[in-house]
């Protein structure tokens, strides 16, 4: 008996060692490509650094003081929030809606699914190019389509003036990323047991009541995760906005990622850029913690 327990203990220790051994490569790669650059960024944020030489002086908390007192960071934060909330809600609403439709018995269902997933597959570069061509003021299909339908009589400047630019960016973002929501929701829908619907039907629930009483609660767990993931990605999004509007007009679509980029590479102020990005991460961290805590409590 005692020896068996002893042997079990030894086996456990050996397993623990094996476990550590298996995670080790991941940890090494993490430290190399994530932890080290992160520490470097934190370190840089206390200096005034000229980007091309990476030389500069220690300036203490100056960069952070400027972050707190300058309007640039806060304006960009608001822009980022508008973009994130706008595009994320569209993604969720449209994604869930589309998933419900594609879950039904549709003609050529798998073709429809492939077509809907397409925006998520294509490169951001392709998405931006196509949309810039669609939005083109002179030769763009959207302006002329709307004009031929009689919805408007002059071409609209989609990406150059406010609020159109923000709306345009949000729309393209939603188009590009809603298939992700479709994928996840569709997957979850397929696992909802049919008998739940049967039971609801017997209780006399209509389609709408069935959605709210059966489907939505079942989707809750997956939505919680998707919203978290997409929110983080949208918050950080760089490529799409940079290539679509470059942050303009003025700074109306300049989100925090673009601000960091501009500070680092246009103004060559690597230190300030690092401080901005640390600030950006802290904001995300706070949102994330609040979100996780609230959703965990409700669950």
């Amino acid at each position, binding site marked *: 008996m005692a020896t068996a327990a002893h042997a079990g203990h030894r086996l456990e220790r050996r*397993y623990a060692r094996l476990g550590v051994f298996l*995670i080790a490569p991941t940890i090494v790669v993490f430290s190399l490509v994530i932890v080290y650059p992160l520490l470097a960024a934190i370190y840089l944020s206390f200096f005034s650094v000229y980007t091309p030489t990476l030389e500069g002086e220690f300036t203490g908390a100056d960069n952070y003081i400027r972050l707190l007192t300058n309007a640039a960071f806060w304006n960009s934060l608001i822009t980022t929030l508008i973009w994130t909330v706008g595009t994320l809600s569209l993604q969720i609403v449209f994604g869930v809606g589309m998933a419900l439709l594609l879950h039904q018995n549709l003609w050529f269902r798998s073709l429809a699914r492939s077509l*809907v997933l397409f925006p998520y597959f294509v490169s951001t570069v392709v998405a931006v190019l196509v949309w810039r061509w669609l939005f083109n003021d002179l030769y763009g299909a959207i302006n002329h389509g709307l004009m031929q339908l009689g919805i408007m009589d002059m071409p609209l400047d989609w990406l150059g003036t406010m609020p159109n630019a923000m709306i345009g960016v949000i729309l393209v973002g939603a188009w590009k990323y809603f298939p992700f929501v479709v994928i996840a929701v569709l997957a979850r829908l397929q696992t909802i047991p049919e008998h739940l619907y049967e039971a609801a039907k017997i209780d006399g629930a209509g389609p709408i009541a069935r959605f709210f009483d059966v489907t939505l609660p079942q989707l809750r767990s997956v939505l919680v995760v998707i919203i978290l993931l997409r929110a983080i990605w949208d918050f950080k999004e760089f490529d799409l906005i940079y290539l679509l509007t470059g942050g303009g007009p003025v700074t109306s679509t300049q989100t925090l990622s673009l601000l960091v980029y501009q500070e680092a590479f246009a103004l060559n102020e690597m230190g300030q850029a690092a401080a901005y990005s640390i600030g*950006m991460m802290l904001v995300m961290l706070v949102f994330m913690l609040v979100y996780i805590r609230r959703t965990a409590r409700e669950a």
Partner: protein
Amino acid sequence: MRILRKLGFNLFTWILVLLVAFPLVWMILTSLKPQTELFRIPPTWLPETVTFEHYWRLLTETPFLIYFRNSVVLATTTTVFVVVLGAIGAYSLVRFAYRGRETLATLVLFTYLLPSVVLIIPLYLMMVELGLSNTLASLVLAHTTFALPYALWLLRSFMEGVPEDLESAALVDGASRMGAFRDVILPQLLPGIISTALFTFILSWNEYLYALVLVNSDAVRPLTTGVMTMLISAFNIEWSLLMAASVMMSLPLIVVFAFLQSYLTRGFGAGAVKG
């Protein structure tokens, strides 16, 4: 009545689907028009003359094929690297008990928060020190920064979906842990691995910012930055070539994903998506 309702539903859904796919259609149509027809006001909805000259020019006169090869190599290598690391790591995180395991799992989630912009310069310096600057390997490592946390997280949820009894049974039958991993867990995990691989591939294939800064020569440039710097410049914007390039960048992916599409949803579904 039933038929009518069905018809209405199908019509409605398909209109939505086609609206979503319209940019794809427009991209293909544009790429088939001759340059002169592009600048017609109002635009022609269907090409009056169909031409494949843009595709031909792209393939014969530009480094498009080199970029394409680079992108394939880059995305594939990243995917293999990340999925192998992630699968082993996830196995460790889910099925082994050791100190610091929970903390590690949480840290993985936090690494999502890192914006790429801030990692670039330190990463670039490191690549130079490693002698990897201006190589595809540097991009593979850089893509790991966002792909690995995601893959690890996905695979971890998939791993949790694999019943523990199966592994225990194998162990009782005398298999080693690694043997059980290979013979029992991997087959169960396969849909999840394919799903993760697809997502990783997409992320890597689409990445723009690292590619812009970390590599400069045409020999190693991927499609995203290659097509942009080649065709959008201060002297010309060749929309027809851009659209042809876009089509060629997307079509192979669409074909592949049309076949593997069910994996994306299947793996994601199996009770896998947990926080």
